[in-house]
């Protein structure tokens, strides 16, 4: 087993910012002069390298727009044959659909984080209830 120091990890950086573009994040990483590999993607970048270096670089990128850049670890390295669509005949890679769903929520989460930081008081919103089965039955019957 590899030790903690040469532990190579991959992190996905998803950018949902109005002021930072994926290329800005990529440039920041290129500037860092560390031995890490990055891959630019449609949602941000993937960074692979020794854990310490990756964490340091990621922190620098996140600091560009703290509440609108999101990071998670990734199991497979970029371009891994078992996941990369280049070797799988095209189509979205497994796991992409989930990421895409969450990426659609990120602007909301970013705004909420801004408010949380500013300590904006939480408005009480009425709890949404699921559609009652009786109501659905009534609608179906009313059409008959």
């Amino acid at each position, binding site marked *: 087993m590899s030790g*903690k120091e040469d532990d190579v990890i*991959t992190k996905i950086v998803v950018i949902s910012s109005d002021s930072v573009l994926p290329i800005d994040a990529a440039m920041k990483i290129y500037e860092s002069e560390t031995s890490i590999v990055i891959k630019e993607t449609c949602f941000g970048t993937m960074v692979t390298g020794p854990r310490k270096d990756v964490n340091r670089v990621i922190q620098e990128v996140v600091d560009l727009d703290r509440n609108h850049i999101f990071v*998670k670890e990734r199991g*497979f390295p970029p371009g891994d044959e078992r996941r990369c669509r280049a070797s799988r005949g095209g189509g979205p890679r497994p796991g992409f659909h*989930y990421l895409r769903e969450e990426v659609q929520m990120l602007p909301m989460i970013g705004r*909420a984080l801004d408010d949380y930081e500013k300590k904006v008081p*939480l408005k009480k919103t009425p709890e949404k209830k699921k559609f009652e089965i009786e109501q659905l039955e009534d609608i179906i019957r009313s059409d008959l």
Partner: protein
Amino acid sequence: MVKVIIYPTNSLILSDLVERFGHTPIAMMAKIKEKVSTVGVDSPPLNITPEEPKMGLKYAAVEVPAGVRGRMAIVGPMIDEAEAAIIVNESPMAFGCMGCARTNELTKFLIRQRDMPILEVDYPKGDDEAREFVYKIGEFLKSLPKDEKEGEE
């Protein structure tokens, strides 16, 4: 610093929020990384061996499909390791690439059985709900102990 298990176990939002508030997320991605990068059996697509469904027997009965037991071989130790949990309900996308509905139900059941702080929220569908979602998670994570920072890198 507390180890917080997240459900859905591969969520970007939850993993990020837990780390943002100074705790360690226990997520599927790190476990998968161990599976795919450990030197040993290299059977595509993962280093899943016949041992995994056997390990899953600790969490699911023998008549449960091998797929559930195999998944529980990864998820089960994550639940054992956790010191707190965040469960997000109403996540239809958790059914699909991530795994089967039965594994998800069993995961949530086993998390709820543990005697540890647990927060349950729903995925937000609008700005107000997102604010409530983030506030609840933020307050929950802030309420967890945050010591032993020196030992961490």
